[in-house]
């Protein structure tokens, strides 16, 4: 299990390759990557991510352990950034490996659903001169109910 909370950027390709290379006997690898998206065409969009040092790592660890207990997984990786991020930058990624695709997909979706609403990160979006905290979406809270 590899869980990192960091301000520095990460290289999606390098991390994905390295994760895959560490697996033994796994037939399926799933990755999810969250990217800062340009909200409107041409409007430069930036994001600031605040987090709760100490609790963040514990929360991610707990979510990863829960996934490990629910599905047959080879491995889990979570990288989540904080600080200032520009449009198109990678915010975070998760990777899962399993012998079969269903477990790898389910675990990755579970990690994302819980990471989104249960790990202490808060996003502030800036477009033009305005900056606002991103509101939690009801559908993200609802997504937890399926697990």
């Amino acid at each position, binding site marked *: 299990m590899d869980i990192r909370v960091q301000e520095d950027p990460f290289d999606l390709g390098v991390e994905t390759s390295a994760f895959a290379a560490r697996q033994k006997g796994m037939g399926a690898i799933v990755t999810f990557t969250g990217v800062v998206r340009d909200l409107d065409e041409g409007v430069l969009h930036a994001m600031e991510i605040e987090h709760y040092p100490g609790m963040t790592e*514990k929360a991610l660890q707990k979510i990863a352990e829960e996934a490990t207990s629910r599905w047959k997984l080879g491995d889990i990786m979570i990288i989540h950034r904080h600080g200032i991020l520009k449009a198109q930058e990678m915010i*975070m990624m998760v990777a899962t490996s399993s012998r079969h695709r269903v477990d790898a997909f389910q675990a990755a979706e579970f990690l994302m659903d819980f*990471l989104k609403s249960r*790990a*202490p*990160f*808060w996003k502030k979006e800036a477009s033009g001169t305005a900056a606002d905290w991103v509101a*939690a979406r009801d559908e993200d809270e609802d997504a937890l109910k399926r697990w």
Partner: protein
Amino acid sequence: MDVLYFAWVRERIGVPKEKIDTVPATVMALVDELRSREARYEAAFADLSALRVAVDQELSDFDAPLDGAREVAFFPPMTGG
């Protein structure tokens, strides 16, 4: 006990962290104590349904007891990922 604030709760209250000397019985008692201090606390805690609380870095409830707690944090619903 340390009280921590994040995101817009931090912005409304104006500090990320403060120490309090009293030991309220529950999270709700702590909220009431803070609310009685100044308008900025009243503003931050106006709608508790928009807030989440963690006691010693574990998500908790407003009726949770605080005996033995070293750290309480208030923040809006999380928006990671």
